[in-house]
């Protein structure tokens, strides 16, 4: 019970920090939880996935209504991501159960992915209103009418957009789905740069459509449920904590300057990735024990 309360407070804090820093809650929860909490990584990944999907399900209806979350892009990407996220979930659980040191392999891979997330967040730019010229729109995008519009209050007018590089984006989304399913990370950190920088969707559309695409990872929850890797004592405090925290965080983000917080969270993310790799390597006996208790 004490751990459940600590977990609730922990996810509440993540929920507050997440909107302020722009770093997704799921991507902070999984690597930090493997370091802080005694739960096995199977349960942490299961909880991370339920958290990511529940957050997305809560925000998507409104974002769809105002035109920011694009159902057409989702309809195209979902069949790809559903398959790869489930395959990722299956392989993730197989690795931990099939090999004696499976848990440590997962920790090393998770750490590597988190370091990749760190690099993506450091290097990626946010294109507010990227221009996609008509001649840049690919055949798939044109045939499927992958475009949309929303009312942008800061400009006081309707903004229209279209997207490019659809076939390449499908391949990238397949890989993202696999990683999301395998580590229970959520995938906003990867979806947003792909939608924004590769496809040319405006940043607000990219962020909202990313939430919509995350719902395609929902079947991966089934992989964890069918293995009994979702426990109420872990999932419920985590989901409730992050949901309340995110609402507080959205208000806090309006008041405080997020630059310092973003750097602080990125530093934590780097540390978490690094520690996961070290924990995995020392668990396998590749390096001596340098993190006490791990």
């Amino acid at each position, binding site marked *: 019970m004490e751990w459940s309360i600590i977990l609730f407070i922990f996810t509440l804090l993540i929920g507050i920090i997440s909107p302020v820093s722009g770093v997704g809650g799921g991507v902070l929860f999984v690597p930090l939880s493997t370091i802080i909490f005694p739960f096995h990584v*199977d349960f942490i990944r299961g909880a991370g996935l*339920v958290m990511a999907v529940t957050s997305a399900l*809560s925000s*998507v209806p409104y974002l*769809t209504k105002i035109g920011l979350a694009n159902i057409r892009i989702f309809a195209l990407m979902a069949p790809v991501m559903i398959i790869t996220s489930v395959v990722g979930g299956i392989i993730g659980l197989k690795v931990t159960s099939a090999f004696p040191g499976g848990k440590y392999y997962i920790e090393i891979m998770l750490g590597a992915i988190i370091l990749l997330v760190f690099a993506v967040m450091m290097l990626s730019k946010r294109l507010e209103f990227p221009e996609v010229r008509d001649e840049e729109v690919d055949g798939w995008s044109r045939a499927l009418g992958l475009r949309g519009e929303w009312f942008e209050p800061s400009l006081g007018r309707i903004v229209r957009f279209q997207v490019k590089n659809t076939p390449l984006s499908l391949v990238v989304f397949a890989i993202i789905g696999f990683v999301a399913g395998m580590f229970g990370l959520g995938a906003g950190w990867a979806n947003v740069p792909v939608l924004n920088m590769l496809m040319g969707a405006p940043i607000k559309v990219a962020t909202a459509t990313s939430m919509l695409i995350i719902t395609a990872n929902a079947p991966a929850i089934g992989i964890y449920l069918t293995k009994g890797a979702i426990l109420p004592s872990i999932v*419920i405090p985590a989901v409730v904590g992050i949901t309340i925290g995110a609402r507080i965080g959205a208000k806090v983000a309006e008041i405080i300057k997020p630059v310092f917080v973003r750097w602080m969270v990125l530093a934590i993310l780097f540390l978490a990735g690094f520690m996961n790799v070290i924990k995995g390597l020392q668990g396998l006996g590749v390096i001596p024990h340098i993190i006490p208790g791990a």
Partner: protein
Amino acid sequence: MAEERKIQVDEMGLVFGKTMIIFTVLGVLMMVIPAILYFLGIRPYIPLAEVSKYWTGSAAEFWRQVKGFEVHGYGWIFKNLGYMDTLSMLGVLLLMITPLISMLAAVFKAPSLTYRILLLVGAAEFIISLLFKTK
């Protein structure tokens, strides 16, 4: 504000969103209410003390320790709905299938045959994924 009302949003998206909000609220309630009762110690399938004793092991080890078997499939949920912790998992199940229900609802408002097919393919994959059991 008047211009805001003029934006063209796919009917497919609106139906998808409306369906999603209904089932998400239901799913969250079904997940949280039994879980609160479980935390209060009412009808647990696995008592909290047992959970915290074995959650350091993998999911397979955990179930072997607390129940003497490994879990494969959804049967453990449906066979034990009288217990609050497993009843709570019914809410997780509903949340999990909410995108599926929303996709199926959106099929009827799809703007073209291509989108109808894409949504149906996504839904079919979803169902196949749910029926897939890891050994």
